[in-house]
């Protein structure tokens, strides 16, 4: 009896084996992963912009060095992920082009502006904190190269969350003005951070297939709840509140309950009408175009060196 490619694939998924680049996989699995990994990579890359906005205005030299290191990590994370996407047979140029032309997106959280220094701390704590919850789950994803990229990224994210919270602890022990700046940042970022986990399970059309393929291991709502439960006490430790009149602790279940999420705002931002969508892409495309001479010069140099070594040989 011979088993089909699809049966072998299904059996590997069932047995929690990883799928590797040279394995047969259904077209839908490949397309889903290319899209998800590429958009994950784009998120890392675009995510550098709101933070880089504060590098020149960091309050101390140490904070500045830390922020540069963090932004450099985000570039690195983007590269691990592009490298994972390429194992599925798509070229780097094609995925970058899809971002530049709006055919692929990135996480909507980066379409919000960073208005104060407190935003940098809140991004590390709330945004990277949400990313960690999601990415810990993705370490168990069924595609080998994606899973390995997640393991590497998770090791580095812990630094991101902790440096952010350290910024916020300093502000919470500061002047009244600094405390107000901190509270204002939480008020603006909390809603968008909750939206990072995506629509409710009942509205999420692709979750079921992704869960069956074990691309995704835990649903949007479950991940969001894990995040809420770990984050609320951390906010209270900073003597801050959350912009949610319905927030309450359920003694019986041990979970925090949040009020309704503004899905109209969420979909508007996904569709390109958030506060910073146009600016983020325009900046990205300009950086790519401005860097053209570097790419060309490196290529010309490599050709010259190759010609020279050929002549010597």
């Amino acid at each position, binding site marked *: 009896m011979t088993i089909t490619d699809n049966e072998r694939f299904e059996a590997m998924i069932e047995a929690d084996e990883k799928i590797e680049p*040279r394995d047969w996989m259904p077209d839908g699995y490949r397309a889903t992963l290319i899209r998800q990994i590429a958009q994950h990579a784009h998120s890392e890359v675009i995510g550098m912009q709101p933070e880089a906005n504060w590098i020149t205005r960091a309050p101390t030299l140490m904070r500045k060095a830390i922020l540069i290191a963090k932004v450099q990590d985000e570039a690195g994370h983007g590269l691990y992920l592009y*490298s994972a996407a390429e194992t599925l047979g798509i*070229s780097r*140029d094609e995925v970058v082009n899809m971002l530049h032309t709006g055919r692929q997106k990135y996480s909507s959280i980066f379409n919000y502006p960073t208005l104060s220094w407190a935003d940098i701390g809140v991004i590390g704590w709330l945004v990277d904190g949400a990313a960690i919850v999601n990415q810990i789950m993705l370490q168990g994803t069924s595609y080998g190269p994606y899973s390995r*990229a997640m393991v590497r990224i998770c090791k580095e994210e812990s630094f991101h969350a902790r440096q952010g919270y350290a910024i916020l602890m300093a502000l919470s022990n500061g002047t009244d003005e600094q405390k107000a700046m901190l509270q204002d940042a939480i008020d603006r970022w909390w809603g968008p951070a909750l939206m*990072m986990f*995506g629509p409710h399970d009942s509205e999420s059309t692709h979750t079921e297939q992704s869960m069956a393929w074990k691309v995704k291991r835990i649903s949007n709502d479950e991940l969001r709840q894990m995040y809420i439960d770990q984050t609320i006490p951390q906010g209270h430790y900073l003597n801050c509140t959350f912009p949610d009149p319905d927030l309450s602790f359920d003694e019986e279940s041990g979970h925090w309950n949040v009020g309704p999420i503004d899905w109209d705002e969420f979909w508007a931002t996904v569709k390109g009408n958030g506060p910073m969508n146009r600016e983020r892409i325009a900046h990205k495309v300009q950086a790519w175009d401005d860097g053209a001479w570097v790419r060309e010069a490196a290529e010309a140099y490599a050709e010259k060196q190759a010609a020279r070594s050929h002549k010597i040989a």
Partner: protein
Amino acid sequence: MSYEVPIAPGETVDDLKTETTANHGWQLWEVFVRPKRGLSYTHCGSVHAADSESAVQNARDAYARRGEAISLWVVPSSAIHASDDPESLFESFDDKPYRHPTFYEIPDEVGQL
């Protein structure tokens, strides 16, 4: 940072072109790191670069920002030749259990062997 970007209601998803041309003249390199002396080089991902020298630099920036490596290899991805079908290439392994020490029963009295 992360994620899955949901598809908005009514939104269509573009087809992917998986057979596109090379990357602006920069080739793809596979990166291998040696984490410390005494250990082998392990594959950790790939980078794009115009030549081997800049591939090493790019690999350092991408994969070794925190002392993950004391040494790196970069190899043009096109130079890697992989084995094909695991079933035909490795199946004979299963019929040769006598290659393993556990195949042989040795009495305990004999001691360490």
